[in-house]
């Protein structure tokens, strides 16, 4: 083991010196986690308020109903009064508004059984989400107006009575509320999701510096020199495997700590996270070792490992939750260490007990055993001059 530790220490010194490991294991995943997390957070309705202009050409009770309803919607939508449709168009074009709704003259009368009118929504093609929000509000408002109209007709109410009904509807609480319980409990917030997803994605690149460097050393002749030394071949292999494991653990641990304290990611129970990290690093090292044994040269190994890392990362949900699309992709996703790591973390982060990591940990260890065993059988040919 002494020789193995010497080889690991030498490898780590080389990796730190050429900065490649720091870049791949920490800087790149951190930058991508931050960028992807921030981008996806930006699209989240809970974290960004949309400013919608309201052009009230009706000046009747219908507009105040809409304003009251939006006021109850919370901070996600801010209404701003706009004098004319032309001004609304200008403000949307200039980006001051995400969209604008034009309530036409005669809207209130229409809701009381008058001639039908049309609500216009002004949007900017460059801001499709803002236009979508405006359309959703206008659609919901039209539906509620239609409901009031039906109720008035059913009750045989005249215009004065209908205005009272509108007032009562706008001030009352809705009889049914919808809460997306499964989503809020199960899904990680974007910052945490991408912190974990990028950590496990780049883990597969970080661990390559250990095992695959056997091929590099063979090409450079330094492996022959080690083989001529009075040490066992197993200690050379152990040294390389320990380099992979050390880089993997350091990378994952640093990313967990940095994203926790600098980006506000919520990884969950530290012990559970530690178990998942250990199992993921072992699995990544085993998969890397297996792919390395299939290659003949260092360059070939690097190319194959990059392809395998990207494909596994994409299937495993490092960039988007592929499993949610169902079918074959969901099935393939389950074959990746990435998916099991992220699933374990999701369960853990949503308040699950420590026991929720048992299943993903067992699967990750099974991947380690299967890939590691095949790699061990094949790796003998790499430890030759």
């Amino acid at each position, binding site marked *: 083991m002494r020789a193995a530790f010497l080889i690991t220490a030498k490898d780590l010194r080389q990796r730190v010196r050429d900065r490649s490991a720091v870049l791949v294991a920490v800087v790149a995943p951190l930058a991508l986690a931050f960028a992807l997390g921030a981008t996806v957070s930006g699209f989240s309705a809970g974290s960004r308020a949309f400013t919608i202009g309201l052009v009230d050409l009706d000046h009747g009770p219908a507009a105040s109903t809409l304003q009251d309803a939006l006021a109850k919607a919370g901070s996600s939508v801010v209404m701003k009064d706009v004098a004319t449709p032309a001004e609304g168009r200008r403000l949307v074009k200039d980006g001051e508004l995400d969209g604008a709704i034009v309530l036409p003259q005669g809207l209130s009368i229409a809701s009381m059984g008058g001639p039908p009118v049309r609500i216009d929504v002004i949007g900017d093609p460059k801001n499709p989400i803002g236009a979508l929000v405006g359309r959703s509000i206008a659609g919901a408002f039209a539906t509620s107006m239609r409901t009031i109209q039906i109720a008035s007709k059913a009750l045989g109410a005249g215009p004065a009575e209908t205005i009272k009904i509108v007032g009562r509807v706008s001030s009352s609480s809705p009889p049914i509320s919808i809460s997306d319980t499964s989503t809020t409990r199960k899904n990680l917030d974007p910052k945490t999701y991408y912190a974990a997803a990028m950590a496990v994605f780049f883990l597969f690149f970080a661990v390559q510096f250990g095992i695959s460097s056997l091929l590099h050393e063979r090409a450079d*002749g330094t492996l022959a020199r080690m*083989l001529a*030394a009075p040490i066992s071949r197993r200690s050379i292999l152990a040294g390389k495997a320990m380099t992979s494991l050390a880089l993997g653990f350091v990378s994952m641990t640093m990313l967990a700590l940095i994203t926790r304290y600098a980006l506000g990611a919520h990884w969950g129970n530290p012990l559970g996270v530690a178990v998942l990290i250990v199992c993921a690093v072992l699995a990544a090292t085993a998969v890397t070792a297996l792919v390395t044994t299939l290659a003949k040269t260092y360059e070939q190994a690097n190319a194959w490992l990059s392809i395998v890392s990207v494909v596994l990362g994409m299937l495993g949900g490092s960039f988007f939750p592929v499993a949610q699309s169902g079918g074959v992709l969901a099935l393939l996703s389950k074959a990746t260490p990435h998916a099991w790591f992220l699933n374990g973390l999701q369960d853990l982060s949503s308040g699950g007990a420590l026991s929720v990591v048992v299943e993903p940990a067992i699967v990750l260890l099974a991947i380690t055993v299967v890939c590691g065993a095949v790699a061990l059988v094949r790796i003998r040919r790499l430890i030759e001059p």
Partner: protein
Amino acid sequence: MRESVLHCEGLRKRFGDIQAVNGVSFEIASGESYGLLGPNGAGKTTAISIVAGLLEADAGEAFVAGERLTTRSVAAKAAIGFVPQDLAIYPDLSAHENLCFFARLYGLSAKQAHARTEEVLEVVGLSERANDQAKTYSGGMKRRLNIGIGLLHEPRLLILDEPTVGVDPQSRNAILESVEQLGEKGMAVLYTTHYMEEAERLCDRVGIIDHGELKAEGTREELVALLGEHDKVHLTGTGSLEAAANACVRIGAVDAASTGDGSIELLVKGASAALPEILTTASEAGVSVHSVEVEEPNLEAVFLHLTGRALRD
């Protein structure tokens, strides 16, 4: 009588259809320099890889300092210092770090490794650049570091596989001087080369290897004596050199012939008497002879005599 440090008996190694080493046997005593002389592809590197414990022989056995040598024998390997043909150093580590790493790998403690590193840096003349990364060194400096690593643990047997290939004349001379000093210190040296001058200068005994077989071995004098009355005749000229060489070899006094860059090498018994016939034959074969030189036999002539081809072929 000097103690035997390396003893090889009937070493064989085959790669597919190629018999790379075929029944090679030799012995090296302490303080002795032994050269394996042969052209590229003769089997030198394979033989040396078996003796360094890198390759397992298909048959035969080797003992280093009394320990049986296999790819797994730790005790035998501890007695060997190995300097591979290609540079085997870490370019992004300094000379000091390279040496310390391999010293520790050979079982030296941290303190011993540091002390030996300083000594070896002095021997190979790299003390002043000890802390610079090896990638910043000149080719000669890298070669010296490559050799220094083999000396770290003061091995009883130092194996050098063509250490001067691709080295400038100045560094080459420095390397040869270092190897000469090692023999004087009692270290057994196994040196492979395809440069006849190096073998003649450095080695107490030389083994001539070709097509994986050890054709002959002995001191320079013993090997040259194998030639008997032969002389080496060196012709330079223009024209059909290959045809002239083939024609000359049919002359009774000519034992072997080979062509080089604008020249023909002939191994001739009684050169002065045979020279007119040689020149006539060469001329009839279409060669315009520019110069003729009759040289005292050397190891190259021995190689030509034993294998029928030149060392550079």
